[in-house]
């Protein structure tokens, strides 16, 4: 076997930043791992607020006679719930938290390439969250325009938050986008330029590929939201008419005129569709890695998985108007976008097949992360299939603005990526804290969340079929539109939602309890091959890898390699150091 001779590195390592005071070490930290935890805690805090909002919404729908919240409040809650969950929780968690923690570790870098910018990006994100949160306490409250913020109604009377809520929402989004551009630069440049020796792009784990592609998408898609937010702010504050047509309000002609609400929709969804892939692609990457580790098998078709991620990312920019079939736009546009939407289903389906084929004949350990992965595959498949209905123009017409859409996007965005986030936390908790999460609480959490979420959203599709509209504060007594069976189903869904909500409280308790009292994890408890588990310390300390950076000799999926004694070979172990099984002269070669 040939010895791999590694020449001296021609590059000098970038000097690692060392904090000089408690403030710069713990608060204004520039260490990506700590920044990741800051992002994660902030995202979960604001996400919890959005979760509580959803409880109120569900109680209002199921028990309208209670009038637990008023109509205006209901619209404010759906808006804030939607915007917080999509942007401030999911995007921030996948890119800010998982990206910051895992990217340097998985590519073999000591930290992100621009640590100061990284620190500024977190504090910018926090300011954006606070500006949004403050809108709950201003006169008029937060905006009730729907997370899609469609003009002209978003800035007109009759919509809650007209006084200041909409302005705070738009300003908060602008601040968020500036922060995420800074963060995005870090993730992209670190992955491109700061990998360790031997780490080619095709040896990076799929988690990194997913987050990388999502970051590129974010860098190109967020400007569209920025453009629409700035123009809407101008319309609101400076009374321009970018989006505002000639209007009469309460009998009075407004000074607006000639604007195009459809322009906003195009700009918003040019951002909005890549946004859902910004949430989905890191989930795809993470789930591929979790399945490999917990099934002790290399991911099936790694190269195609990479190309599918890149392909989905590229295609996501040409499907946006499938959110606009009923907007009154030219039907030929609809035809074009329906075609591209069907095309994007192809690489997505390829990924699902490859996950199944990875599990096939794998040594499946039903650990909690694996359970969450299996839950992801099932819910994503379900949600993706309903997307095929909605992606076709004519089928979308009766289903648009009904609960079918709500069920679809909660399945693909709400349950599936969240199951991945939860599974990822169970998987990487031992790395981050050095302790394992409590097993009993974890299994309870998984089963209630998974089964409960299905009980919430599967029946909801039928509500959509029979035409129950979305964004209605209450359905009223019309038997033709809203049957009593639909009302009963809504009660059932609400009870399931509250049960799932309770399970999340158990999870939060588990996280804080186990961080202090959990079983001390052995080094690399899941026996994973990727670099983040090969650090000298667990949890990894500042600088990640000790004196010498690792050198990479293989991809991240050498599980159950024929001829190896262990069922995994870490990425930084050269062939000559691999322990061979009895009867093998080298990897894959039996002794004759």
């Amino acid at each position, binding site marked *: 076997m*040939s010895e*791999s001779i*590694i*020449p001296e*590195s*021609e*590059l000098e390592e*970038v000097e690692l930043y060392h904090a000089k005071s408690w403030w710069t070490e713990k608060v204004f930290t520039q260490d990506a791992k700590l920044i990741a935890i800051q992002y994660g805690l902030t995202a979960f805090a604001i996400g919890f607020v959005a979760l509580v909002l959803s409880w109120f919404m569900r109680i209002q729908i199921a028990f309208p006679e209670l009038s637990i919240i008023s109509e205006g409040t209901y619209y404010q809650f759906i808006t804030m719930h939607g915007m917080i969950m999509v942007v401030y929780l999911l995007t921030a968690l996948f890119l800010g938290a998982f990206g910051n923690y895992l990217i340097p570790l998985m*590519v*073999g870098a000591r930290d992100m*390439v*621009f640590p100061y910018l990284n620190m500024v990006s977190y504090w910018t994100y926090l300011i954006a969250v606070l500006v949004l949160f403050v809108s709950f306490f201003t006169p008029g409250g937060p905006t009730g325009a729907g997370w899609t913020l469609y003009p002209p109604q978003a800035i007109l009377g009759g919509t809650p938050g007209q006084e200041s809520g909409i302005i705070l929402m738009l300003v908060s989004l602008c601040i968020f986008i500036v922060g995420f*551009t800074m963060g*995005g*630069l870090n993730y*992209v*440049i670190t992955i*491109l*330029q*700061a*990998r*360790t*020796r*031997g*780490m*080619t*792009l*095709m*040896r990076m784990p799929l988690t990194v590929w997913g987050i990388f592609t999502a970051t590129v998408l974010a*860098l*190109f898609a967020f*400007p*569209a939201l*920025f*453009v629409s937010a*700035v*123009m809407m702010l*101008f319309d609101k504050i*400076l*009374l*321009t*008419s*970018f989006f505002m047509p000639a209007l009469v309000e309460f009998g009075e002609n407004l*000074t607006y*005129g*000639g*604007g*195009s609400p459809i*322009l906003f929709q195009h*700009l918003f969804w*040019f951002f909005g569709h890549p946004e859902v892939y910004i949430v989905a692609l890191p989930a795809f990457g993470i789930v591929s890695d979790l399945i490999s580790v917990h099934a002790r098998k290399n991911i099936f078709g790694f190269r195609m998985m990479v190309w599918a991620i890149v392909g989905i990312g590229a295609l996501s920019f040409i499907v946006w108007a499938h959110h606009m079939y009923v907007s009154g736009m030219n039907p030929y546009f609809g035809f074009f976008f329906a075609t591209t939407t069907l095309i994007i289903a192809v690489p997505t389906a390829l990924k699902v097949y490859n996950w199944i084929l990875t599990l096939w004949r794998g040594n499946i350990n039903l650990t909690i992360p694996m359970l969450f992965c299996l839950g992801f595959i099932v819910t994503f498949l379900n949600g993706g299939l309903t997307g095929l209905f909605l992606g076709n123009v004519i089928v979308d017409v009766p289903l648009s603005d009904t609960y079918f859409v709500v069920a679809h996007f909660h399945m693909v965005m709400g349950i599936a990526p969240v199951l991945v986030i939860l599974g990822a936390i169970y998987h990487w908790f031992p790395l981050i804290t050095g302790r394992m999460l409590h097993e009993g609480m974890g299994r309870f959490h998984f089963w209630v969340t998974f089964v409960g979420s299905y009980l919430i959203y599967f029946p909801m599709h039928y509500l959509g079929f029979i035409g129950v509209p979305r964004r209605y504060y209450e359905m009223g007594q019309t038997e033709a539109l809203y049957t009593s069976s639909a009302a009963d189903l809504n009660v059932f869904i609400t009870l399931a939602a509250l049960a799932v909500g309770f399970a999340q409280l158990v999870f939060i308790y588990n996280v804080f309890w186990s961080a202090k009292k959990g079983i001390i994890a052995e080094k690399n408890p899941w026996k994973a091959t990727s670099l983040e588990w090969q650090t000298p310390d667990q949890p990894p300390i500042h600088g990640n890898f000790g004196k010498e950076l690792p*050198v*990479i*000799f*293989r991809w991240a999926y050498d599980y159950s390699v024929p001829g190896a004694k262990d069922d995994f070979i870490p990425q930084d172990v*050269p062939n000559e150091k691999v322990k061979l099984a009895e009867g093998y002269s080298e990897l894959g070669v039996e002794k004759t």
Partner: protein
Amino acid sequence: MADQAAIDDNHIGRSSSHPLPRVALYVLMAVIGVLFSLFSVAYIGRMAYGDWRILPEPTLLWFNTGVIMLSSFAFSRATINAREGDIKRTREYLLLAGVLTFGFIIGQLFVWRELVSFGYFVSTNPSYAFFYLLTALHILHLFGGLIAWLNVTYKSFIPQKETSDFSLKVNLCAIYWHFLLIVWTLLFVMLLLT
């Protein structure tokens, strides 16, 4: 396969041989380019409506365009001098570039004043609104560049270490200024033609 593995083992870990700050600037320029392209698309789409009015172009705009071209030129000279090690000349050109940039920004503000005095307000007409919006955005990006300019000009006053990347920083400022000049030229042409 083993040969490819041996080649991969020796991979240096970088996708580009450019230094880190240059790669970062290229990515940033791509993002800013997307931003201005989207605004342009919105502008062109909006133009199709009947209430579009043509905004008169004050002569000052042409003068401002000349000023920003000169500032780009000053940055080029600064780059060349920095590469040759002539810090004194570099410092002079950097200061000139900064002064010219501030001149451009003030000039733009005067253009706004002139238009407002003729009654062309931001809310009068979408064509005017776009003009104010696009010029404001361009100025904001110049301000961002001025932060980097401040840093590099400060560095030009203090003695540099052997391994410092001063000349790279000057070069990157120059590239960013040329980029904003191209953005301004495209915006200006678009505003002129409509």
